[in-house]
């Protein structure tokens, strides 16, 4: 007997539309799971109970009256708490935004609502999306549903854990250097970073504007595709958005994809991870794909370039948190302005402060050419090299993460170790090109993700290969809890 919560996104919308079950039944079931499970998992920072039930009833009555309902009618979507939701607290898991309530909806939220998706709540993250484990949250760490002692990955740890634990149908995270693919890999769900400019960033609270995209998570590839069909496209509120090739299809009929495995990334991976990725390549070969291995030397500059750019942009983006327009209660009366700013801004967490300081350093007078400009040139170099690779291959595969999930607290004292976790994912953020992480297997009960990358706006190629792999491997999509 399958549980409602384990239904894929397509099964939920079909079931509700065909009145096999009501949206209200489904939402109640999901809310009940959140109540029961989230005390342990800690994926949610706010639950939108009243709104969710109300929306479900509205959808049900529309269906009963025979009216048309939206593309995503009745699915429950959890939202990373750095995406602005009108009237719903949006904290970035930070003390400086502890009770900030946005007066507007992010474009993606508006689009979800217009397609009758239900915003079920806000999800945990590393403060301002800076981290790879969700341990740097003012609300405490999110736990991995596959093993509660382990990290969920990050920074969209709440978004991946909530989907893995079937506390929602799907979720939105943000991916700046792997922040959706990392937790998707660690939690065995599908996480997709779109081409830069595919999805509007209006309402996404900026960490590093030139690198990040809002990114969907679901338990199946088709779930992610359906979300992309709703959230992507040109937005007059975001001048960096571009026309996309949507709607994307979930009907792949090609098997002979040209695939390259980037072996710099398997060489540096934990042996269990590397083994799993080679076996994934074998699976794809057997399914008819043409696979070969390649090495790209310039990748050794990727991680440093990523962190230079991300921290530089972050140091500027986070300057606005000065407690004047929003923030906690501290009367400015009597303070000299510099000391007031410095005092209130010391409420940022440890990792955020670290990145602000480094970002300030790399932009400061005399260092621009050595770090920031150089990092930007590396981006141009990587784009050139990947463009040339995509003239030969449809997609490139690699591990999503170089390591398996680890225990909470294990690496928190060593920032550089945590930065090194992003070594495989930052590449696509630097090039701006799309990449997905899909479940590829387990090692000792801990999930491993396969990363599939492609050229600008070639999301369909990625989806085709991912769908093929998913169909072939049939990896369990049922929640472990």
């Amino acid at each position, binding site marked *: 007997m399958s549980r409602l919560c384990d239904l894929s996104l397509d099964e939920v919308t079909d079931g509700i539309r065909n009145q096999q079950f009501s949206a209200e039944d489904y939402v109640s079931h999901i809310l009940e799971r959140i109540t029961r499970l989230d005390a342990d998992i800690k994926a949610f920072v706010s639950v939108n109970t009243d709104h969710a039930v109300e929306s479900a009833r509205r959808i049900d009555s529309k269906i009963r009256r025979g009216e048309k309902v939206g593309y995503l009618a009745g699915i429950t979507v959890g939202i990373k708490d750095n*995406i*602005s939701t009108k009237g719903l607290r*949006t904290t*970035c898991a930070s003390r400086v*935004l502890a009770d*900030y309530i*946005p*007066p*507007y909806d*992010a474009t993606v939220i508006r689009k979800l609502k217009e397609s009758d998706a239900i915003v079920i709540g806000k999800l945990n993250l590393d403060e301002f999306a800076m981290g790879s484990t969700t341990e740097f949250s003012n609300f405490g760490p999110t736990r991995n549903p596959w093993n509660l002692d382990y990290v969920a990955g990050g920074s969209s740890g709440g978004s991946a854990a909530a989907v893995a634990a079937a506390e929602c149908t799907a979720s939105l995270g943000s991916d700046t250097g792997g922040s959706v693919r990392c937790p998707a890999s660690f939690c065995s769900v599908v996480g997709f970073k779109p081409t830069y400019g595919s999805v509007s*960033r*209006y*309402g*996404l*609270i*900026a960490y*590093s*504007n*030139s690198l990040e995209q809002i990114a969907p998570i679901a338990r199946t590839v088709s779930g992610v595709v359906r979300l992309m069909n709703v959230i992507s496209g040109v937005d*007059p*509120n*975001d*001048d*960096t958005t571009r026309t996309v090739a949507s709607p994307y299809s979930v009907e792949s009929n090609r098997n002979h994809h040209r695939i390259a495995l980037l072996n710099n990334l398997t060489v540096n991976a934990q042996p269990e991870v590397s083994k799993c990725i080679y076996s994934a390549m074998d699976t794809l070969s057997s399914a008819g794909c043409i696979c070969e291995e390649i090495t790209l030397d310039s990748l050794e500059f990727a991680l440093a370039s990523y962190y230079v750019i991300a921290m*530089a*942009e972050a*140091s*500027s983006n986070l*300057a*606005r948190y*000065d407690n*004047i*327009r*929003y923030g906690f209660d501290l009367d*400015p*009366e*009597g303070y000299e*302005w*510099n000391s007031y*700013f410095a005092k209130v801004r010391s409420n940022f967490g440890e990792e955020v402060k670290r990145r602000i300081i480094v970002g*300030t350093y790399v*932009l*400061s*007078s005399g260092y*621009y050419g050595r770090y*920031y*400009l150089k990092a930007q040139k590396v981006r141009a170099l990587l784009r050139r090299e990947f463009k040339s690779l995509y003239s030969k291959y449809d997609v490139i595969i690699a591990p999503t993460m170089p390591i398996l999930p680890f225990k909470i607290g294990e690496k928190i004292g060593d920032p550089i170790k945590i930065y090194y976790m992003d070594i495989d994912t930052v590449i696509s953020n630097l090039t701006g090109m799309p990449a997905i992480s899909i479940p590829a297997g387990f090692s000792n009960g801990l999930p491993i993700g396969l990363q599939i990358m492609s050229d600008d706006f070639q999301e369909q190629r990625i989806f085709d290969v991912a769908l093929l792999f998913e169909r072939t491997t049939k990896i369990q999509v049922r929640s472990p809890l």
Partner: protein
Amino acid sequence: MISNYGTKIGLEIHCQLTGLKSKLFCSCHCNYREYSPNENICPTCTGLPGTLPLLNQTAIEKAAMVCMAMNCTIPNNILFYRKNYFYLDLPKNFQLTQYNAHGISSIGVDGFLGYGQGEARIRRVQLEEDPGRLSYVKGSSGSLIDYNRAGVPLVEIVTEPDFHDPKDVRLFLNKLASIVEHLEVCDTSLEGAVRCDANISIGDSRRVEIKNVSSFGDVEKALKFEMTRQKAMLNYEMEIRGETRHWDEQRKITKQSRTKEEEQDYRYFHEPDIPSIQIDEDYLKELHSKMPELPDERKERFINYYKLTEHVSKVLIEHKDLADYFEESAKIYFAPKEISSIIVTDLMSFADDNSKKLGSTIRNIKMSPKQLAEIARMIKEGIVNRKTAKQLLYEAVVSGKLITSSENEANFRKIDDEGLILRSIENVFETESLAVLDAKKNPNVSNYLLGKVMELTKGRVDPGRALSLINKKLLEH
């Protein structure tokens, strides 16, 4: 004594693009002056988390026109940069601006602008956002913040240090003001719409920056003060420190700033939320064909078409409003010389009484161009003499009413009838019999009698004609 020789002055001028409807990066009103505090704001211009700048197309257009008027090169791609610094009036704690140190990103570079006899090179023209405004309450130690102005578009015009005399600076700024008015990008009469910083160095001395000069008129004064101060220091062989000084508007002096400029490190980098903006040749061509007439062209036209003198034309085009008023009036009644002379002499004298600003005077007077045309007609057709015309003018300027109805007109009409003039003279002779006796002995007293006649006729008689009639009458007496 140290001469002006070796003095180098450069300018940094900020003009709000007051002609726009919306702010530079959001749809709030560009005209923020009409709103109560924090009523002209949105998530974007208050820097709320998650907002993105949406560049105003017309801001690019207007700034490009300013560049064209100053003979600048306009690059094919422009970028915006973040200038990172903290302050209470900056919602994001960075300012969106343009920056050329990492490659040309600003809307215009390498231009020049002629003024009077001189010419100044324009280093760059860039677009940037205005910050919000701070105010203070007496007795409280805090500040009050109003974001209504935050995000209003500014063009910053930076000159090379090509000026040697503060007087030239004034001529240049007048020319610049006229240009932005003719382009309809900036209403320079609005409070805070134009601001100017200047830098000055004498001989080999260090450069001193003067900030916070909020009207063009004060720039010359600030520079004169600073030159006097620096020359005095040099005469006493004191070293001039490279520093930033603020202009104290009330006391008309420059003061040392308290902010520590050397601690500023703006950490400029390209704003990732604004793509590189492509400005193609066709766009510029279209824009060029849309360019309004500039002051220099207009002056030539005034000289050639209206046959005005160089001087009168120059005075008129210095303020677009003045030149517009003139043309509108001359369109109604083609008497350009008469009309222009009334504007530059008579109206100027009214202006001198109060603000000395002819441009804003013309805007504040109640007289319409049509009324001015009517006065010119009456003069031309000999209906009124100049003295009466001036009274009519004054009345119209103050009240907006021009006395032209036939009955009133009669009161102001020149008295041509010799019988009427003689009757007035007789009246005066009757009341001033003692003076009449005196006048017979002393010819100068006849001028006194003339005065009385003019008084009685409210100046409506021709004084020459009246005097000869008076003299004739004295002989008859």
